[in-house]
């Protein structure tokens, strides 16, 4: 049973301070939406407003077309997985899973069926008689998810659920949550500050910054066509390189940019911008190559090399001290201190105007 979530001009204020500033958003039934953004951007607050744990100061929240602003959390058909897991330490795993169902006055046989079914899905059947303190971080996370599953909610909300897990377990749980979404088909809203989680799990990413939506879209849309410098810098790892430049000219669908002492041509029109405007040139580290393969952007001195096995990351400096990150495929025999000529593929570059918006 999948549910549509609609936010219209939603605002959250604490006194005079506005932390959510007029959010308009549609999440389709069955969609896996990820709210992503830096700390303090309001993503958790927005999730908690949808859950009913925070009052909505302005605007409207609709679930399947029904206004929910004044509906108590328990009656919204929502289940939430907390960052801290929020397991009751004095109850067994079974009791933790059953708590919500017992509260609802469900029959014991039905409670047992649902708990056992959820435990089976999450492979925690053998843990049902244990207390949370006897579980590992990953097992606790599964129980927390199980507590949401047993309620058979319309919408699952996840508030940074993998933050307390180690790197290996995060990857594993990431996959499991995605599989769970595939199997259950419910609408899920997931909050994270980790753009890798967002890219790998989401049908739709909502990038938030200072209480506003910067961009909404499919992961690859955000990666390929970021609408502004913030989204371009936030999505993608390592982060996109930004080089300050000046617009030289633009005609016949071609644009020339003065960059670091040389002029490069990009095959794109740039709308209203005109020659002499300050622009920011953006190139993702994985789209920069060593050698003169495309458009050369100059020589760089390698300051540091990270060998990741599958990738070699170079942290380099261009003339004038401009830093540049380059991600090369495979294991490259590059050493710190070397000077390399680097090139870009003009098709995969980005230009941002003085206001930070993409040109």
């Amino acid at each position, binding site marked *: 049973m999948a549910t549509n979530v609609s936010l219209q001009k939603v605002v959250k204020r604490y006194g005079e301070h506005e932390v959510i500033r007029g959010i308009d958003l549609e999440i389709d039934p069955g969609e896996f939406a990820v709210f992503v953004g830096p700390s303090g951007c309001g993503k958790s607050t927005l999730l908690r407003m949808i859950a*009913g744990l925070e009052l909505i100061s302005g605007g409207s929240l609709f679930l399947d077309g029904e206004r929910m602003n004044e509906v108590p959390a*328990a009656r919204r058909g929502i*289940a*939430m997985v907390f960052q801290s897991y929020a397991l*009751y330490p004095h109850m067994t795993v079974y009791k933790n899973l059953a*708590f*919500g169902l017992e*509260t609802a006055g469900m029959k014991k046989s039905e409670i047992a069926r649902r708990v056992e079914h959820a435990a089976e899905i999450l492979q925690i059947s053998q843990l049902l008689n244990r207390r949370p303190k006897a579980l590992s971080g990953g097992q606790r996370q599964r129980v927390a998810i199980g507590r949401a599953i047993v*309620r058979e909610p319309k919408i699952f909300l996840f508030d940074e659920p993998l933050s307390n897990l180690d790197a290996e377990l995060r990857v594993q749980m990431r996959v499991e949550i995605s599989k769970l979404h595939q199997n259950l088909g419910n609408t899920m809203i997931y909050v994270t500050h980790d753009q890798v989680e967002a890219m790998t799990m989401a049908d739709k990413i909502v990038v938030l910054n200072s209480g506003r939506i910067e961009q909404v879209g499919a992961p690859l849309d955000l990666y390929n066509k970021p609408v502004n410098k913030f989204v371009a810098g936030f999505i993608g790892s390592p982060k996109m390189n930004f080089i300050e430049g000046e617009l030289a000219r633009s005609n016949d669908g071609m644009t020339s940019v003065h960059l670091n002492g040389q002029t490069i041509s990009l095959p794109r029109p740039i709308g209203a911008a005109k020659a002499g405007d300050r622009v920011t040139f953006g190139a993702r580290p994985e789209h920069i190559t060593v050698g003169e393969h495309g458009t050369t952007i100059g020589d760089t001195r390698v300051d540091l090399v990270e060998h990741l096995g599958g990738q070699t990351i170079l942290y380099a400096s261009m003339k004038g001290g401009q830093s540049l990150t380059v991600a090369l495929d495979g294991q490259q025999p590059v050493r710190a201190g070397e000077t390399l000529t680097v090139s870009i593929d003009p098709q995969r570059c980005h230009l941002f105007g003085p206001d930070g918006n993409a040109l």
Partner: protein
Amino acid sequence: MGNQRTAIAGEPVVRISTLAPRQKFPGALARNAPAYLFLLPWFIGFFGLTLGPALVSLFLSFTDYNLLQPPHLVGLDNYARIATGDDKFISSMKVTLFYVICSVPLKLVFALAVALLLNRGIKGLPVYRAIFYLPSLLGSSVAIAVLWRQLFDSDGVVNTILWQFGIEGPSWISNPNYSLYTLIVLAIWQFGSPMIIFLAGLRQIPIDMYEAASLDGASKTRIFFKITLPLLTPVIFFNAVVQTIDAFKAFTPAYVISSGTGGPIDSTLFYTLYLYQEGFGYFRMGYAAALAWILVIIIAVFTAFSFLSARYWVHYDE
């Protein structure tokens, strides 16, 4: 002589002490001398004022000693007399047990109720906290016990108020049916200390737990009994043990309100008051010491029982 600094390439600088006393004393003692120096006040306090007198009282409990003549050993006579022929031991123990059983649970319930009220994010919390804690600071003092007399005397404030409603109150303090209850009320009034600890305990419960329960549709009552109370059991346990030990040792209120007699008709004769009468009224120091050690044993047994029972009802998170 002084400190010498040595450094090995790539290693942090190590400070090696070459203090002069190292030549005179064994190594470990000399090395730790400054630490022992800092601990000295505690050693003096513990050995001179706690352990020393405790051991002396243990010795005296096997003697007959009236302060004027040297103690002489009587073996287990004092303990045998307490166990077999001392009616006042029995009656004072009954009074004390009744006081403990009534005052401790009521005080804890009251303290928890106030802590729950104060935990609701009200403005000016520190002020309320200080006001509610005040009786605990003053509660054991003679001044408060005197005030209690004024409140509960036959023509005291309580009866004056009752009289306004046409009720003629009894003489609470001089009536053996009521006198002990006034002391129990006084004990409950001193709820500040456990209240502060409850408040700290309540603030330790993660808000996520409450939010998870509210998403599950749990009512406030269900949340209190199923979440708050179980998560508060370590604090309840601590408060219960400390308050019970304190209640067993209660002395000042009974002494002041009954003018040291434990009356009327021994109704406020706390165990400690009886012990005091034996020691400082009749100068039977050996007998009083034996009474004191029996109280120690009773408190120890109670505490041990509490810790044994804790494994069945106290929930520790980690």
